[in-house]
């Protein structure tokens, strides 16, 4: 193993090792002081950032397409292998660098922002686990390993949405987000299985040359389903504003920077499939454009700073999806890097957005111009309809509730009734489960802040 390979292994595994160490200490009953955790986080991310330099040098100086580290198979059963391959190529390296730098900045910011907040240790634990999941997903040499990182990102994301655990709304919103993530993951799991069956491998290295156009279309659609779930694209967009219940640093790193772009990364990795299927590419463009339009319209009526930023993120990620669908991969990568950086800054400044605005307004002598409103060109009736549509966030949650969650809960209720047939003392059941799945916590009266 040469220096660049060793550095890649360090970058990918260091946050996981820190998470494991801190979790073990906590389990045996010792919680490290806040300052120690913050310092460990600083050192780890600084070292990871430095370690990216030899990876970059290894990639540029050797002239190879990728720095690759092949471990033994994770497990092998007959002909089926789960390869453990880490890879840094010209696509994954920018994502690795973005993750390390932005997660490090968030760690530094949070040390002050969450100082003496109950649960600060839990926040740092989850930050390390999330970074580990992201780095594994971005450095994976195959879709198999990408799934592992992808799911870790999902569960940490959900646990951080429920960070303020004493309030019901974040907890119920976390459950809603988790449900959508898991639904999207079905597409990824089935897609990876189909890739094994049809292409004989899920490794990125070969480019899947034996796939037919129809197979590529089906795979593209499955991966798009997974990507749309993770990136909150239409029709799954309703979860993103709910995810803003988490602490601001986690909103910044998840929904401004890394997690929200994981779906785009998946599609970039699936580019050999999309290039072979016009239908799949068109679907990606359609979903992206629909999300961009949805995001920009809904964002205009959003009354809170983080909600507005979430819709702005949606709009940009929608545009990125469209770029990927059209095959403009380099443009998409540059767009992702720029968007992630700017949005992280905006999210971190969100708690003082009004203060910033007033300062800026004062500096300009109170003459800050209002943003241009394209909708003013529309007839008033249409404006009103659009306003209502945007206020209900495009009715996406309502549609999802009515056509997916409600029927499922109804079915479950019927099954419960069937099960109760032979019971003498029926237990109280399914009284409010439906309410929780349909996100009543987000729409209902909010409990007071503690």
């Amino acid at each position, binding site marked *: 193993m040469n220096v660049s390979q060793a550095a890649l292994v360090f970058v990918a595994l260091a946050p996981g090792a820190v998470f494991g160490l801190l979790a073990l200490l906590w389990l045996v009953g010792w919680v490290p002081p806040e300052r120690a955790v913050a310092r460990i986080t600083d050192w780890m991310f600084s070292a990871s950032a430095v370690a990216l330099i030899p990876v970059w040098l290894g990639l540029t100086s050797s002239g190879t397409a990728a720095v690759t580290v092949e471990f033994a198979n994770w497990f092998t059963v007959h002909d089926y292998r789960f390869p453990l391959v880490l890879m840094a190529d010209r696509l994954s390296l920018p994502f690795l660098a973005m993750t390390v730098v932005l997660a490090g900045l968030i760690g530094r910011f949070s040390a002050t922002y969450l100082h003496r907040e109950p649960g600060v240790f839990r926040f740092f634990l989850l930050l390390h686990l999330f970074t580990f999941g992201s780095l594994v997903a971005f450095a994976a040499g195959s879709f198999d390993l990408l799934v592992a990182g992808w799911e870790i990102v999902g569960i940490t994301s*959900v646990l951080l949405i429920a960070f303020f655990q004493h309030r019901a709304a974040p907890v119920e919103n976390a459950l809603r987000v988790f449900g959508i993530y898991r639904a999207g993951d079905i597409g990824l799991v089935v897609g990876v299985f189909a890739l094994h069956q049809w292409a004989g491998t899920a490794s990125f290295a070969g480019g899947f040359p034996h796939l037919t156009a129809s197979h590529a279309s089906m795979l593209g659609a499955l991966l798009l389903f997974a990507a749309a779930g993770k990136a909150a694209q239409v029709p799954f967009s309703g979860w993103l504003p709910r995810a803003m219940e988490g602490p601001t640093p986690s909103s910044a790193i998840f929904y401004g920077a890394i997690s929200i772009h994981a779906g785009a990364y998946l599609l970039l990795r699936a580019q050999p499939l999309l290039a072979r299927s016009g239908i799949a590419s068109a679907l990606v463009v359609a979903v992206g454009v629909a999300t961009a339009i949805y995001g920009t319209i809904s964002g205009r009526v959003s009354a809170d700073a983080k909600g507005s930023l979430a819709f702005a993120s949606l709009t940009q990620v929608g545009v990125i999806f469209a770029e990927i669908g059209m095959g403009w991969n380099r443009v998409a990568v540059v767009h992702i890097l720029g968007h992630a950086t700017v949005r992280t800054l905006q999210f971190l400044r969100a708690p003082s957005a009004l203060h910033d605005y007033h300062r800026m307004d004062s500096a300009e002598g109170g003459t800050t111009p209002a943003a241009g409103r394209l909708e003013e060109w529309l007839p008033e009736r249409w404006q009103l309809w659009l306003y209502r549509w945007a206020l209900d966030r495009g009715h996406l949650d309502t549609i999802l509730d009515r056509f997916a969650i409600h029927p499922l809960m109804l079915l*479950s209720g019927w099954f419960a009734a069937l099960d109760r047939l032979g*019971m003498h003392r029926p237990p109280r059941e399914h009284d409010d489960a439906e309410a929780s799945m349909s996100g009543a916590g987000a729409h209902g009266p909010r409990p007071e802040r503690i």
Partner: protein
Amino acid sequence: MERGVMLTAVAIGVPWAAALGTVAANRRPRAIGFTAAFIAVTASALLLRGAPAGDSLTIALMVLYSCLTLGATLMLPRRDCTSGMIAGILFLLGSTLLAYSTDDLRVLLAAWIVSSAPFLREEWFGAPTWRPKLGLLLSGAALALAVAVIAASGGTMSIGGLIHSSPTSMTVFGLLVAAVVFRKGICPAHAWVADAAQGGAAIPTALLLNGHFGAMLAARLILPLFPDTARELFPLLSYLALGTALYVAVRALTENSPRRLIAYLALSQSACILAGLESQTIEGVTGALVHWFVVSASTMGLFGIVRLLEVRFGENLTGSTHLGLAEHAPRLACFFIVFGLALVGLPGTLGFCSLDLLVHGTMASHPLTGLLLPIATAMNAVSVFRLFARLFLGRRKTGLIGMADALPRERWIFTVGVAFFVLGGLFPSAIVARRAAEAEMVEQALQPPKGSSDTVAERALRYHHIAIAQVE
């Protein structure tokens, strides 16, 4: 006496003797139970050490079950840790190990029935319905009838001998399948499991369910004895298992009783084990065998944590409102989410590997119905998180002054469980490779060689020869 026989006798005899001793002495039940279970673990582990790869499934199951019982003796809250309870648990351990290890059908039947005996007591099975007792009764009756038919047809009572003679009676096959369906709680015979979990003693019921006698019967008897019939008819049972996994997963979505919910999760994931066993692919069978370990360990942990919460918080634990218990019991919350997510395939745990193999194996053999497996698992994941959120997160309980988190003995045993999942997930080869060798044997016996037209008896004999070759 041969070393293997002696160790098996120790693993079975010591728990039984200790059960009698606990009742007679009526003091220090936890210490006696722990020691007896520890001896059973050691004897089974020594047996496993000498067992050849490919023929060690039953011994591995003995180790697993002994470990589960050892854990149960530690996690039992003081309120439940009576002489009667420990004696019952040890009796269950002895009879389950007997069922795993015996080669005689009559002994298997006796162990099958006797393992249910402690649950005749009201405090163990105080279920609100008659269904648990009926489920156990019907499964025992079906197996008894199968054994009777084999005996009436003049067949040998040895499982190894039966493989040589290959009984092809469809009646025996049907009765064995019925025994599996009733014992495992395959739909429509699933409701008894949730009833048993809700009304009975939580930890002993978890031990009863985690014996997985249904899957054991399928792996040890049905697959090797009826390779031809199994190949033709097992897809039907596989569809039934996958249907059960989905049905129960949907049912769990609106369940608010923690015990019933965990029982549904266990049922759904156990049905996945059966679906994997019937997939006729090495990946699927291996995934099923590994998942067997995952389901057993995780549901044992989940039932244990729920019981500990009941003892601390009150018996009226419910998932209908937020209880916010994480503030008082953060470690129990952490253990709960790890066990729960391991059950549904959290990456970095052994559950991820087993479900990966299960999905690949099942979907390879049944591309359309196999889709139900990831869907059911996704729904189960939502149910796990919902229960976690309701029990541990949400509003602060202002009326609750103090509630103990995991006590040291509980903390250590749960940490061992977490270590099993995490280390097993990071380095799964040791577990997967052994299960793969066993799965390969089953799969080879089921698949006729290309271009050959060998009979069922020849194929069954080949299974036996492969087993002998593995031993040698």
